[in-house]
């Protein structure tokens, strides 16, 4: 194959294998909300922002806050950034890169049966299916250190509980929509609880660096343990 042909191939790949549809919305005079076509693209765009910031290629931005399909840039001094971002070449998300954080989990949650029914599987299949998936922190919110994890196939999305619980214990492993989350502390919540993480204090410790065990972009695996009680 000639060098010219190889270049054409890689150029063609560059056109197809990149994030498209980067829309920039203004969120007041100092913030930009970048909207992508999918959660996957938003994660890829967020990774690209962090790469550019680490390389010193991003103008000063106070906060970079990923969302489900967006990334918010707050405290943007250089307004020309808005015009430039849509033409960035953003490589697709490479899952499987980097070390995964392993979270021990006991699959004994009160909503296992409801989730099994929603998935159309036997109750004891739920832990197997869930633990097999490879997760990634798409974004954080709700409470410090609460991570919205993606990685379950789309057809395994579940509804929130019709009536939220007034008290979900710290460490509860729960599902809502396409997301998996682990409650860093006791709080109200409407997610379907399928298990619990022993020692949930590890999720959030403001005296530690980093304070959050699961920050945006982190890879995560759930490891079933025999711990009971």
């Amino acid at each position: 194959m000639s060098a010219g042909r190889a270049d054409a191939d890689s150029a063609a790949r560059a056109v197809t294998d990149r994030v498209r549809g980067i829309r920039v919305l203004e969120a007041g005079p100092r913030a930009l909300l970048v909207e992508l076509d999918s959660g996957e693209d938003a994660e890829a765009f967020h990774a690209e922002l962090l790469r550019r910031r680490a390389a010193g290629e991003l103008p000063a931005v106070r906060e970079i806050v990923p969302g489900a399909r967006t990334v918010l840039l707050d405290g943007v001094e250089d307004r020309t950034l808005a015009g430039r971002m849509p033409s960035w070449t953003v490589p697709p998300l490479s899952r499987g890169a980097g070390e995964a954080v392993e979270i021990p989990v006991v699959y004994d949650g009160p909503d296992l049966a409801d989730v099994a029914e929603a998935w159309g599987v036997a109750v004891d299949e739920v832990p197997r299916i869930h633990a097999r998936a490879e997760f990634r922190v798409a974004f954080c919110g709700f409470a410090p250190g609460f991570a919205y994890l993606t990685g379950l196939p789309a057809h395994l999305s579940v509804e929130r509980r019709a009536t939220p619980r007034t008290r979900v214990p710290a460490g509860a492993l729960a599902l809502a929509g396409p997301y998996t989350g682990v409650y860093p502390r006791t709080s109200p919540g409407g997610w379907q609880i399928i298990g619990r993480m022993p020692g949930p204090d590890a999720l959030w410790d403001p005296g530690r660096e980093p304070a959050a065990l699961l920050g945006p972009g982190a890879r995560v695996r759930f490891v079933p343990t025999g711990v009971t009680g």
Partner: protein
Amino acid sequence: MSPAIEVVRAGALTTVQDAGRTGWAHLGVPRAGALDEPARRLANRLVGNAPEAAVLETTLTGCAVRVTGTRPVYAVVGGAGCRVTVDGRPAAWGAPVRVPPGAVLEAGPAVHGLRGYLAFAGGLEPEPVLGSRSADLLSGLGPPVLRDGDRLPLGRPGGAPRADTVPWPGAPAELVLPLHRGPRDGWFTEEALRTLTTAGYRVSERSNRIGLRTEGPALRRVRDGELPSEGMVLGAVQVPPDGLPVVFLNDHPTTGGYPVVGVVAEAALAGAAQAAPGTPVRFVEA
């Protein structure tokens, strides 16, 4: 004995606040910090503190604190207008006041405005969390809401207190909030957008450090449902299903699923901090 203050009367809601906890929104950490940031800075300047020093933020009913230690401490009560006393004797509002050791500095109930700021020479120095001493009432980070008997250490005084008289902005009789449209103005009907910038609203009693809630005409949407969670900025005007705009203040959640019709510029939020329930609110095109 190292200098400190002891809380004699905590008041309705008194917290420690500095410039806030920025840089952690991606982990779900609200920024917190003084709602009336210019008042916090001015109070610090008048007692010779660095701008980042932590102060007390009071709500409506003021508070009283005793100065402990062996030396007098200079303090300034500013923000909401109120009666100031030292051991019961009238003292200056909005200017440095000398508080001898053992004496009680009292900021009385607000006569205009809502939130008072008490700066002490040396600054309040409870343990910082993620680089800030601000209390965050949404997530509970930082020092807890003050209670009677609490003790807060003071740092070393920096410069000398300033004797100059400075103008403090008064509390707004009407709160005018310049609004930058978007990012989700497209979720609302044209009529709703017109209503927002022409109708009169009032500050709701359900307002707090998380948001200034309003009462007035509900805004109709062209789309139902919730947005996929997205990042929220300070000053965002979020519209929950009841259609009544909420202006996000410093303890706002970092992400949310209700559409943001517009964003109020930060400079206008100091007025929002001082607008008592019932104050008329007008959103105007920025």
